[in-house]
């Protein structure tokens, strides 16, 4: 590693001549906040040349915000980024590219219908006589460049004919051709078949040998240990650790990711009745999930977790009628459950809290009062369909008191409340419908600790009143606190079940199960 990097005629002279280790990028004290949330707070990060720096953290820990700051796509509220001896306070995307930072997203987007050669030279195609393009030269040049990276891809092939591995590698190669010094890889192996991962890794390693620095974002922790030299851990927007991978083990890494003090809330073990509220048998939706079997009993709080695309989110949306549910037997309170629209689901006493609060949850222009009673207006009207204002105000006031919604009046526009209070308003709307099954999708996303505790308390209250709850979340520590059972979904199947109180039901194991690498015992 410390030896002089191999020179394969790589175009960037600067890299070749620099002694190792040199810092490519140094970010100091980066902060970025959005209303109500500190997405990234005082984060410092250093990336050396010829080094792969892993970046891990749960969803919402601030990884993507950090990347956007480094790419100049968002302006930091504070802090500096130093690249190649220059210090930037606010970088523009152009400056970031110029400085040699390149980002390879999870889903590489290239001009699909063009050939590999055209893609590589896109933007500066060599023009021949009369402005016509000299295609022969294009192919030769593309071939020459790929050979430098010892990448064997047929340059005449169309990009949509390549497999995902090749497309990703081509994207990395393209970044290098534009003289990138630091490449940010966002889950490069997420969509790859197992065999190709090693091929990708050896390609990344050879680039590393040539002095390129990488930031490697991944949810797969084994990969981090396999390919990274160092790993940085983000949690709730803060950099909680930066270690050489040789110095730590997977358990320590997970502990850093999960944290200790998420919530002081603890929930007693309520006796759960035998009565089944929701039962699902052999539910299949092709491409999303298959052979789902589960049941939730009265008063039970069941957690459902999994990576993005594991099927847990689709299942929740399907049950509420927002998406196609699939084929299988679903029963709610003993009766066959069919809901093609949210209206029908609500009519069968199933309420759903969407993860995207702003799009599906609140009507920001309207008041707290109106937002809470949308789903129950039918019960509030009297003669001539005029809304009974006194009853409505009483009801809304009781919710504001019970959930501790901070608002100066019930006529306050919901758009002007903080995230936690907005979430409580949505919660009140659901509870007002008196549901028998409550599906909550990331109920604590983007809200502060106090609001989280309030929401947990309400879930607990509802459960003791016999409401069954299905909680879809990636916050494993929160799940392990609030849930009676936690189901883990992986690639469309329910793979594990953790029961509260069991020795194995600890957040670390759940996180491993989510990533598909938990072996019980």
């Amino acid at each position, binding site marked *: 590693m410390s030896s002089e990097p191999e020179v394969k005629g790589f175009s960037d002279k600067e890299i070749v001549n620099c002694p190792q280790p040199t810092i490519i990028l140094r970010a100091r004290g980066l902060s970025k*906040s959005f209303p109500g949330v500190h997405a990234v707070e005082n984060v410092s990060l250093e990336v050396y040349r010829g080094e792969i720096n892993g970046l891990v953290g749960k969803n919402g820990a601030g990884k993507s915000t950090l990347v956007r700051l480094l790419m100049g796509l968002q302006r930091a509220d504070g802090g500096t980024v130093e690249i190649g001896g220059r210090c930037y306070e606010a970088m523009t995307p152009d400056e970031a590219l110029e400085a040699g930072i390149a980002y390879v997203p999870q889903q590489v987007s290239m001009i699909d219908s063009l050939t590999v050669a055209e893609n590589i030279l896109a933007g500066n195609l060599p023009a021949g006589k009369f402005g016509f393009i000299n295609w022969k030269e294009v192919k030769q040049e593309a071939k020459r460049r790929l050979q430098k990276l010892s990448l064997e891809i047929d340059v005449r092939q169309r990009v949509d004919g390549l497999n995902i591995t090749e497309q990703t590698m081509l994207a990395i190669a393209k970044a290098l051709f534009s003289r990138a010094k630091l490449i940010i890889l966002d889950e490069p192996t997420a969509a790859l078949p197992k065999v190709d991962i090693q091929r990708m890794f050896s390609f990344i390693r050879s680039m590393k040998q040539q002095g390129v620095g990488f930031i490697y974002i991944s949810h797969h922790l084994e990969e981090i240990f396999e390919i990274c030299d160092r790993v940085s851990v983000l949690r709730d927007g803060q950099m909680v650790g930066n270690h050489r991978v040789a110095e730590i083990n997977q358990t320590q890494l997970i502990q850093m990711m999960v944290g200790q003090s998420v919530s002081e809330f603890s929930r007693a073990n309520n006796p759960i009745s035998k009565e089944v509220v929701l039962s699902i048998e052999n539910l299949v939706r092709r491409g999303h999930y298959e052979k789902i079997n589960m049941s939730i009993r009265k008063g039970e709080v069941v957690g459902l977790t999994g990576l993005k695309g594991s099927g847990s989110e689709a299942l929740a949306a399907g049950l509420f009628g927002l998406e196609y549910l699939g084929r299988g037997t679903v029963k709610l309170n003993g009766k066959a459950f069919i809901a093609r629209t949210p209206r029908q689901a609500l009519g069968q006493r199933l309420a759903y809290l969407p993860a995207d609060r702003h799009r599906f949850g609140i*009507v920001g222009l309207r008041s707290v009062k109106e937002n809470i009673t949308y789903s129950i207006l039918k019960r509030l009207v009297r003669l001539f369909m005029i809304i009974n204002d006194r009853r409505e105000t009483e009801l809304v006031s009781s919710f504001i008191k019970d959930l501790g919604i901070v608002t100066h009046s019930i006529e306050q526009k919901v758009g002007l409340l*903080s995230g936690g209070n907005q979430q409580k308003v949505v919660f009140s709307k659901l509870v007002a419908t008196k549901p028998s099954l409550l599906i909550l999708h990331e109920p604590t996303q983007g809200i*502060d600790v106090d609001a989280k505790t309030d929401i947990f308390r309400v879930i607990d209250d509802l459960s003791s009143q016999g409401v069954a709850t299905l909680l879809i979340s990636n916050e494993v520590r929160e799940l392990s606190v609030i849930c009676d059972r936690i189901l883990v979904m992986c690639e469309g199947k329910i793979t594990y079940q953790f029961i509260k109180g069991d020795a194995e039901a600890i957040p670390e194991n759940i996180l491993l199960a989510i990533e598909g690498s938990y072996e019980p015992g």
Partner: protein
Amino acid sequence: MNNYGRIRGFTVLMVVMQNLIWILLIVAVIAFSLASDAFLTSFNVINIFWQSAPLGLLVIGQAFTLITGNFDFSSESTMALTTLIAAQLMVSSASGGLDLMVFPVFSIVVMLLLGSAIGLTNGLLISYLKMNSFIVTLGMLMLLRGIVYAVSSGNSVSNLPQMFTWLGGGTLFTFTVGLKTLGIPVAAIFLIVAFVVAHTVASYRRFGREVYTVGGNRAAAETAGINSRKVILKVYLISGLCAALAGWLLAGRLDSVTPRMGTGMIFVVQAAAVVGGISLFGGRGTFIGAFGGVLLWSILDSGLNILQVSPFWIEVARGGLLLFAVFIDAIRVRFMHWLSHRQALAQSTIGLEVE
């Protein structure tokens, strides 16, 4: 503390901006009364209300569709077609009718049903077939106007029965001011009643609540179990019905129906609604504000006419007012965003830990 004071200061500004229409109205009234003695007379005030009645009805229909985030450009043609058919049913061929001499009450029923049917068609196309409201109603605007020309063969219909013209042209409670004998126009009373009903529906009935929700955030409305397609269907039904009523009022005042009745009026309707604070993006605006918009528009028309300003410059003034209204609306939206960010930050406990 200082910060809070600033926010409170802005809240005052906010109140001013929310009620801008009434401030503008007062300014306009004062300015025109100073400029001309003929403006603030009972004769002219009565006239302003009388003239604004058809416009007011069209604005009510339009406001409902705008609040759901949709347009209805077809209402001026709907108004012309429904009124023309009703008029033709009632009068002799000498006056441009069909010689059917239908009893006025029956023809009024036909007229209102036809207006509702046109609205229903618009609504079905837009809500259930998910066609774009702008294009659907623009097409309808042309199509219905074409039918009006075809059905009337370009001829006006006049000599309408008194029972029909009473609503738009009749007066109640006559009284004498100086040498003139004046009466309160039925149309003016009808206008005010219509706005009171519209305001009640929008602010106190379940349907009104749903209209605002669908316009404010359709996805959230549907997630909350509101049938947004039905709501949109209903607002178009209302719009069609209001157009027919507007035609009834206008025909009554003019005592005739011309094939060109209401052409170009849709722009005035949209402008009056926007000036009155109805947002083109949906979800915002009240019927009280819209009523103010209608009045301001009529006052501007009447005042400039009394001052004998050239019609060309009246058009300039109208355009200027519309641009000003949209400008204020844009500022209001920006201000709201700014305020929401501030308040959200101020309330979040995470935000307080920074210092």
